[in-house]
Structure formats: C-alpha cells, structure tokens
C-alpha cells in the first residue's frame, strides 16, 4: 500500500514536532460534583484520584515522516494527540511544533445543522485556522472530494450521517496543513470513500507532509508508516521500524491481554464466572454452545439506575460483541448490597480463537464507570467446521452447472 520508499530522502532530520518530558495527569472524580453547593460541602474531601495518562514522554517527529502510534486502550494515544494539537496542556514538559497543524479527531465537530454545507465549509475551515481567501481557493476541491454534488447547498441537518462525515473529512484533509494528526477516523464512509482517503494520505506523504496517525490496527500502521510508536500505560514501550514494532506489539497482544480495572467503585464487581449451559465454570467452548456470564457485585451504598454490561474482544483488542442491560431494555431502578447479574447467550456464534471478556457497571449515560474490568478474563472457542474469521454464519451453496 505504501506509495513511496521509506527512507527515499523525503524525510529530513528536521523536527516537525517535539515532545520533551511531556506528562499529563487527569483527575478521576469519584462523583461528578460540579455545583457550588457540592464543592462547599466536600470542601476538604479530595473527591478524585490522580491518573497519569502520559509519563514523561520524549518524542521527535521529523518533517515528512509518517508516524503511527499504537497501543491498547487507555495507553495514552489520544491524550498525546490532544496535547499535540493544543486542546490540552501538559502538566510537565514542553511541546514545540514547526508548521501548521490540523487534526482529524472528530469529523464535522462544529457543524451547524441550520447552515448549508457550503456555509459550514467556511465555518469549519476557519475553526481549523483557515482564512476566507484560502477557503475560496480550495472550496471546489472540498465539494468534489465530498461527493455531495448539489446537496452542498442544502442545510446540513438534512444530511445522512455518511454525508456528514464525508463533508467533515473533505474539509479536514483539504485544509492541507504541514502536520496532520489523525485519530482513527479512517473507519468512516463506504469502502470506496475509504480508499480515497488512504490515497489522499499517501499523496500527502509524497508531498512531504508530516503525519501522525493513532490507530488500533497494527497492520494499517505497519503498511503506511515510516516509524511506529508503541505506547503502553503512558510510556514509550517501543519506537522504530514499523514491521518490528507491529510484530512485537501483535505478539504481546496475543500472549498477554492488557488487562486492567478502574472505576469509582461505588459498585464493585467482585467475581466474574464464565459458565456453560449447565451452569458449570468452563473456559473451553465449541461454536454453538450456550454460555452464561455471571457477575457478582456489591454496592456499599444505594446506587440508582446502574447499567451492567460486557464485551467480548479478539486478541487484537477489537470488540467482537458487546451489550448491556440498558441496550437489552432491562431497567435496574437501584442496587444496594450484594447481587448477581447473568447474561445468557444460548448460542455462541464465534469461530476458533481466544477471546477476552470485559465486564462493567456504569451510569446510564456511560459517563461514570463504577467498575470496569478490562479484558481480565478469557475463553477459548473451537469450531468444528473449518471456516475462517470470527463469526459462525449459516451459509449454503447453490451451484448452477453450465448446461
């Protein structure tokens, strides 16, 4: 996929972005107390824990290079990107940039539904730091790239989500910055639009732009970058040759899932059992077996309207399936004391492999996690058939022999 040879002289030794001893700390609040009254009442109580999302990271991104940042959830990838753009400021250390920066963190942030696509282009581009004259110059290209055609003069509120995202991407990518920061937004649009986006990124590489890409997908990272940075728990685990780092990363992810737990612990999930259909603990399943996931929880105090859920992940950390009590339309008015929640899966439609399980209890809106056990459990699935992939699907063949 790579459109040029790595080390073909495009990359200089001039820094485009430099992070020196950058550290970022978040306060994880036990309870969201934002009103004055609550602040006064909890005057002396420190209602938060400190969480270091990045710990003294040194990094130089050279002009013209494409650097991918990989790492498991919560490793600090997105925080790093936000610090680079200036949305957040580091607690320690310094960040210097040479050249203009544009970030694809979220597409279409700042679109106003009542304005037309064209009006939104001007607004959005100026949020990204462009002058009107510069927009005038590239607007045709933006419209063409977005494939919106005559819809460009319709109000954005009438757009489909696909159109919305296409317009957002077209603006951001045509802003043509010296340094482009991308946060896993490539998974948007249909396949042909995705190809266009990758093509566009390759073109920017050829034009000598500096690109920092944050992704879960080590394969994409390896195929388009000059170097890969592997972040883990806020620290640089490995930095260098794309093939080497991505191989090491994938190896690590396979043998040792990055498990962790966090949350305010107002509800504590004490024990998690993976059971077979008869209710016996089991970690080996065959495709089509029944499975029960049982959570035992304890709430010291009464907690209103909690949601319990789980997620099943593959060895690379991608979610294969997930649901929760809210999505299943089971309301839990409150919990207090101990109890269990069971999720019954009558038929496990998964193919061969090791799968990791996360379970969680959180608020209805998902804003506050009471307790989250991230991929701390696993089970293996053996498939009697020989299909490949993740999902067992019914498939039938019909042949029409030429007569």
């Amino acid at each position, binding site marked *: 996929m790579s459109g040029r040879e790595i080390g073909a002289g495009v990359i200089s030794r001039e820094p485009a972005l430099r992070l020196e001893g950058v550290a970022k700390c978040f306060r994880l609040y036990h309870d969201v107390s934002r009103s004055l009254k609550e602040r006064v009442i909890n005057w002396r109580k420190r209602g938060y824990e400190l969480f270091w999302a990045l710990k003294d990271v040194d990094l130089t991104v050279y002009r013209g290079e494409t650097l991918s940042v990989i790492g498991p959830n919560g490793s600090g990838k997105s925080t790093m990107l936000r610090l680079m*753009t200036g949305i957040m400021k580091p607690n320690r250390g310094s960040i210097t940039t040479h050249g203009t*920066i544009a970030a694809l963190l979220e597409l279409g942030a700042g679109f*106003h539904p009542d304005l037309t696509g064209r009006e939104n282009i001007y607004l959005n581009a100026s949020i990204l730091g462009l002058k009107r004259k510069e927009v005038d110059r590239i607007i045709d290209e933006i419209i063409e790239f977005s494939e919106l055609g005559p819809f460009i003069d319709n109000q954005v509120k009438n757009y489909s989500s696909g159109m919305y995202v296409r317009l957002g991407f077209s603006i951001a990518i045509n802003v043509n910055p010296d340094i482009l920061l991308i946060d896993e937004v490539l998974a948007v649009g249909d396949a042909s639009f995705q190809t266009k986006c990758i093509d566009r990124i390759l073109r920017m590489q050829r034009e000598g732009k500096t690109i920092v890409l944050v992704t879960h997908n080590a394969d994409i990272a390896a195929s388009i970058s000059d170097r890969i940075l592997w972040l883990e728990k806020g620290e640089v685990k490995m930095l260098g040759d794309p093939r080497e780092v991505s191989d090491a990363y994938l190896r690590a992810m396979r043998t040792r899932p990055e498990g962790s737990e966090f949350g305010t612990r107002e509800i504590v999930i004490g024990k998690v059992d993976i059971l077979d259909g008869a209710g016996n603990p089991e970690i080996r399943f065959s495709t089509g077996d029944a499975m029960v996931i049982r959570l035992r929880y304890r709430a010291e105090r009464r907690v209103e309207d909690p949601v319990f859920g789980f997620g099943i992940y593959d060895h690379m950390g991608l979610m294969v399936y997930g649901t929760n009590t809210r999505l299943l339309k089971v309301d839990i008015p409150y919990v207090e004391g101990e109890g269990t929640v069971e999720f019954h899966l009558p038929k496990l439609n998964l193919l061969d492999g090791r799968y990791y399980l996360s379970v969680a209890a959180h608020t209805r809106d998902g804003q506050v996690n009471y307790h989250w056990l991230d991929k701390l459990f696993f089970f293996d699935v053996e498939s009697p058939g020989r299909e490949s992939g993740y999902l067992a699907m019914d498939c039938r063949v019909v042949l029409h022999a030429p007569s």
Partner: protein
Amino acid sequence: MKKNLKKFIEYRELLYNLTIKEVKVRYKNSFLGFLWSMVNPLMLLLVYYVAFGVIFRLRAEGMVRYEFYLLAGILPWNFFSLSVIQAVGSVVNNADLVKKVYFPREVLPLSYLCSSGFHFLLQELVLLAFLLIFRVRLSPWILAFPLLLVLQACFAAGLSLLLSAVNVFFRDVQHFTDIFLLAWFWMTPVVYPVSFIFESLPPWAARIYLLNPMAHIMLLWQRIVYNSPVNGPKAAYFSPVGFTYTVVLSLLLLILGYWAFCRLEGRFAEFI
C-alpha cells in the same frame, strides 16, 4: 496572555465567521427573520410604556417623548445583558468543539458579543429613524456613538470572558447570571430617570448607586442618543469622575477577564 492574544489575532476570521453564523442562525426558519430584532424591543417598549408612561405617569416628569428615553436605554441594556447571558454558557455549550478542536476559545464568548452588537446596531438605526421622523432634537454628541459602543463592549467583553471561563468549573454561574442581570437592570437608570434616585435615596446610598458602571454607561447613551439634557433634564447626569471611573473599570475588567480566561483555558477540555 501575550501568546494567546497573538493566536487570537491570527484567528480573527473565525470570530467573524462565528458571528455571521450566530446572526444567520438566530432567526433562521422564522417567518419574520431579521424583523424580530425590531419587534422584540418594540414589544418591550410597549410594555414599559404602558406600565410606567401611562399607568405610573412618568411622563409627567417633564420628559419629552418618554418612549424614546426608554428605547435609548433599553436597546443598549439588552445588547449588554443578551451578550453576557449568551456568552456565559458559550464554552460549556460548545463542549464538542472545545474537546475536539484547537482554536482560541475566547472567540466563543466574543462571537456572541459581536452578534448581539450587530442586532443592536440595526435597532439603533431604527431608533434614529424614529427620532428624525418625530423631530426630536438630536445632540451633536451622537457622533460619540462609536466610542461609547467600544466602552460598553470592553466592559461586556471583560465580564463575558471572566464568567464564561469560571462557568466551566462552576455551572452555577450561568444560573446566577440570569438573576443577577435582572436585579442589575433595576439598579440602572433605564426605565426611570436618575433623578428618582437622588430624590428618594439618602446621599450615601446614591453614591453607592453610582458605583455601578452600567449606570454611567446608560446615562451616556441617554445623553447622546436621546439628548437628555434638552429633552429630559431630570434624566441627565454626568460626572467626569464617574466617567473616568467607568472607563478605567471597564479596561481593568477586560484585562482581568482575559487574564483569567487564559489562565483557565488550558483545563477546559478535560473539565467540560
């Protein structure tokens, strides 16, 4: 602060675009559109005129065309209170943007100041037309209009920056502002002439009353637009000390507000 200011100047077109957006969006999808800018204060005028002009007979105080006196104060006051109320919630209400994109955040509160200012200018044009039609004697001081506009804008900008930044951390500010502005309105000579205060309050209380910078700003609006020394001497009050005090305070508030905004800005994205 210096660095912020440089960035802000770099992004001045964003302020312009956001202002245009606000102006366009406010009356979008409404039948009367821009006319609402006029209808709104005219309705207010009717209410106050009936209440105070007709029922309480404030007219009898020797004021020519009391309704124009009212408009001369209500329009700038509305400009002030509307821009502050909108600005206070501006950072919080644009959480999506603040969390996802970097740009100088001060354009958010300031864009509301500018869009309210745009409507204010439209309204003043209409008022001016009325004054000419009804042959109310204008004051040559009306030429000071832009200067007074800048003075009020400085004061409102300082307050907006300060409140919108603090509001990110204490959401109460938003609710408090609404109530406070209502009280503030009646602590400012808009509906009644300032002579009421001098006549009914002891001197020390009147002195406290005059600590309100908006009172001085309103008195100036009435002086230059309504020509209060000629058309309503009871509403005319000017003190060089009060004026100097207001100018200095407005500038100080602007600096303080911007300083506080810059200090707190770095933590907006994680707190919002």
